């Protein structure tokens, strides 16, 4: 550092090219990441971000191009080689052994000698040092499954640092985090940078890029389309570069014209699987022609509330009235609720909303498989199902428009469009929708938001649950804030600001003046 020559970049890629069969996943990628910086890599799903990072981490080998680490050319033929070169990766889906302690997880694979006890003791000392240096406090003797998601991610970061990582790659690190946990993560990344580590943040969230990175590389269709200093750009500018056209980040909508009450919830109480009360006496009324947004930090009972409304989880008390029909006393199951005009786009699409191994057309009747339109006597009407799916795909711009493709052949955004198409085509009176744009690219987000507003304008009611405050602020006519399983406040859209909502989400009840 003292000899005055400029330092080589921590990581430099030159002309990385990669094909998978017919797919040209990476086209001549070149990028340089300065040492001691946080570098953003942004692009829509399928833009090739993960491929290029997997090449850097040794999972894939590039067809052409070279990789330089700290100015030296390296051959990264395996993750082991990448680790040896000082590259660490934190995957979107954690690679942890759930029933091992934190310490055991960190030493897994680097046990340091045949006798475990000695290695563990040395690792404990090293980790405590790391914890002090970077403010990465993790209870070393706790079993991983008992940690929150945010702490599990910290364990992954510790794992990488313990293996001597100088360059840390994080793949969509905030996808599973609450806003608070995300903020903590970003502070941690800042400390890593201050200590001279290099961080590469792979994400599709513009706000994160703007908040923490020094420079940002934008990818589209396998190629780098821009590399800029973060302070010289804006979210709108980045979004346009990602998508390749102008994008509306906000939805245009007129004022709501609320009508009669369609869904009324009275003193609803819901417990989770372990019998812990998660919803404690929630009441609200949802009217025709309005969108209610439920804001809150993830894990404050939103999931349980949505499941109870949809009929997936039995409430422990209270009433749910759908156009006057009591859904709780009559124990109305999701199928019967659909018949009464209640549709549901679930929070976790792949876990609940679709069957991944089925074709698009088989997924297009999920929940509606016993409708007369889809059956002819005892047999399912294949032609009607196919035609129905083709119609849904055309109306909701699902690509590729092939009903026979397996669901997993579609991108996240198109899968979500399929789910929304299925639920909206049933012409519901009330739509429950959870995290409608999670894992969905920007182009599709815009489309999905417009669909929800159109549904409202058609005189239907929408109950929107989202952890993205932007989404709530952009769509909702009224905003309920949930904290600790209770509604802590209600705001008209005009009165809501991010700051006010943030305080309420933290559980600070407002005294109504």
């Amino acid at each position: 550092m003292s000899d005055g020559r400029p330092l080589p970049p921590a990581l430099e890629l030159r002309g990385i090219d990669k094909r998978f069969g017919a797919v040209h996943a990476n086209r001549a990628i070149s990028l340089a990441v300065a040492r001691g910086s946080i570098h953003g890599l942004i692009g829509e799903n399928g833009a090739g971000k993960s491929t290029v990072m997997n090449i850097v981490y040794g999972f894939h080998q590039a067809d052409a191009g070279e990789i330089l680490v700290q100015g030296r050319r390296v051959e990264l033929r395996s993750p082991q080689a990448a680790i040896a070169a000082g590259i660490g990766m934190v995957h979107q889906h954690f690679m942890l052994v759930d029933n091992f302690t934190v310490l055991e997880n960190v030493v897994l694979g680097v046990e340091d000698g045949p006798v475990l006890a000695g290695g563990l003791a040395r690792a404990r000392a090293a980790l405590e040092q790391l914890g002090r240096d970077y403010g990465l406090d993790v209870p070393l003797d706790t079993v991983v499954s008992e940690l929150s998601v945010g702490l599990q991610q910290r364990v992954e970061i510790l794992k990488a640092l313990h293996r001597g990582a100088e360059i840390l790659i994080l793949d969509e690190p905030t996808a599973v985090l609450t806003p608070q946990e995300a903020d903590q993560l970003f502070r941690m990344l800042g400390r890593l940078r201050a200590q001279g580590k290099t961080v590469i943040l792979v994400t599709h969230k513009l706000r994160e890029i703007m908040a923490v990175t020094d420079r940002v590389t934008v990818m589209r269709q396998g190629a780098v389309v821009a590399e800029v200093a973060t302070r010289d750009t804006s979210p709108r500018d980045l979004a346009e570069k990602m998508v390749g056209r102008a994008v509306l980040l906000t939805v245009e909508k007129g004022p709501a014209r609320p009508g009669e009450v369609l869904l009324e919830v009275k003193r609803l109480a819901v417990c989770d699987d372990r019998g812990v009360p998660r919803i404690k006496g929630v009441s609200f009324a949802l009217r025709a022609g309005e969108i209610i947004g439920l804001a809150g930090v993830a894990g404050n009972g939103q999931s349980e509330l949505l499941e109870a409304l949809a009929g997936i989880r039995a409430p422990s008390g209270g009433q749910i009235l759908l156009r006057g029909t009591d859904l709780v006393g009559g124990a109305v199951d999701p199928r019967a609720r659909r018949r009464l005009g209640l549709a549901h786009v679930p929070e976790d699409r792949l876990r609940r909303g679709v069957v991944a191994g089925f074709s698009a057309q088989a997924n297009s009747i999920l929940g509606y498989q016993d409708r007369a339109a889809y059956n002819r006597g005892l047999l399912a009407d294949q032609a009607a199902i196919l035609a129905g799916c083709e119609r849904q795909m055309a109306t909701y711009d699902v690509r590729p428009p092939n009903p026979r493709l397996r669901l997993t052949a579609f991108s996240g955004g198109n899968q979500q469009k399929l789910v929304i198409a299925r639920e909206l085509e049933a012409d519901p009176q009330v739509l429950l929708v959870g995290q409608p744009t999670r894992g969905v690219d920007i182009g599709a987000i815009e489309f999905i938001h417009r669909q929800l507003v159109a549904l409202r304008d058609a005189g239907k009611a929408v109950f929107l649950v989202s952890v993205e405050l932007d989404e709530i602020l952009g769509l909702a006519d009224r905003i309920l804030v949930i904290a600790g399983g209770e509604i802590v406040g209600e705001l008209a859209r005009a009165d809501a600001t991010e700051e006010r909502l943030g305080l309420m989400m933290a559980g600070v009840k407002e005294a109504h003046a």
Partner: protein
Amino acid sequence: MSAPRKLPRWADLGLLPLVSLAAALLVSCGVIALLGESPVQAMRLLVSGAFGSPEAVGYTLYYATNFIFTGLAVAVAYHAGLFNIGCEGQAYIGGLGTGLVCLGLGHLSFWLVLPAAVLAGAAFGGAWALIPAWLQARRGSHIVITTIMFNFIAAALMTYLLVNVLINPGQQSPETREFAAHAWMPAAGDLPGRLGAAFATSPLNLSFVLALAAAAALWVYVWRTRWGYELRVVGQNPAAAVYAGISPGRITVVAMVVSGALAGCLGLNELMGSQHRILIDFPSGAGFVGIAVALMGRNHPVGIVLAAVLFGALYQGGSQLTFDLPRINRDMVVVIQGLVILSCGALENLFRAPLARLFGRVDSK
């Protein structure tokens, strides 16, 4: 970690099983050579023993009938995400139902006995599967464990009944009296003309046709009705099923009862078609072979019929082998069957990757 190349569908369904089968037979040849017999002669005997004469074909299809029923039974449970290892016991108890009808109504018209025997076999087999199904749906007892246990309970129950209750008085072996002639399944040998004469000495009977009909019906049920759709949703994603208003517990019960009912039809072939009495341990492992048949047939009715014929051929050709080659005994035939199961089921992916690479190379040229 690079994405695995996909095989074309025809190669995946047709070529891959053949390659696996060839590999299994190749290893078998090695073992036969080690035993000091000629592998070429052994293979020739195996094939001619299974297909060499109408009688041989009749035996092969007769065994295949058993395996079609049990293979279908395993497959329908599989599509609901359940592993039914209890087909052996369900077939045994189902046979009791069929046998009781034959004993009780055998003096009446065959066309009265047949539907009653089918219904009784299916009902008894289904009822035997209902208990583990209900235990899983309601109490969470794992169906793999309970169905295995129910095999033993079925065996004990049948031994008790045959030794103490149903035994033909004045006879040593634990079996019932012979069914009256109206309760005998029409045999292929009863067919008019040369066809009948050709099959005269084989036990092939009408049950084979019933098994094929069951395969067709199962295909329609699983892939062409809303109930089959619900079954597959539960099998592939129980959480999505709940979301769609489908009760996984109810589907578990329905799928297992259908599965047990199919296994319970084994008695039609084995008892009504061949033995004409109820006797100890008549399923003789067909319930377990059904697992291999379903595995090899990819849980699809067409595949199951083909796999069942293959296993029928191994049974029939294998017994020919033990007759003609002194150094090859019954256990050696079991070894060959085991190698086929190992190769087609467990080691399937051994050949998938090289085959896919081969296709990839051909494609890119």
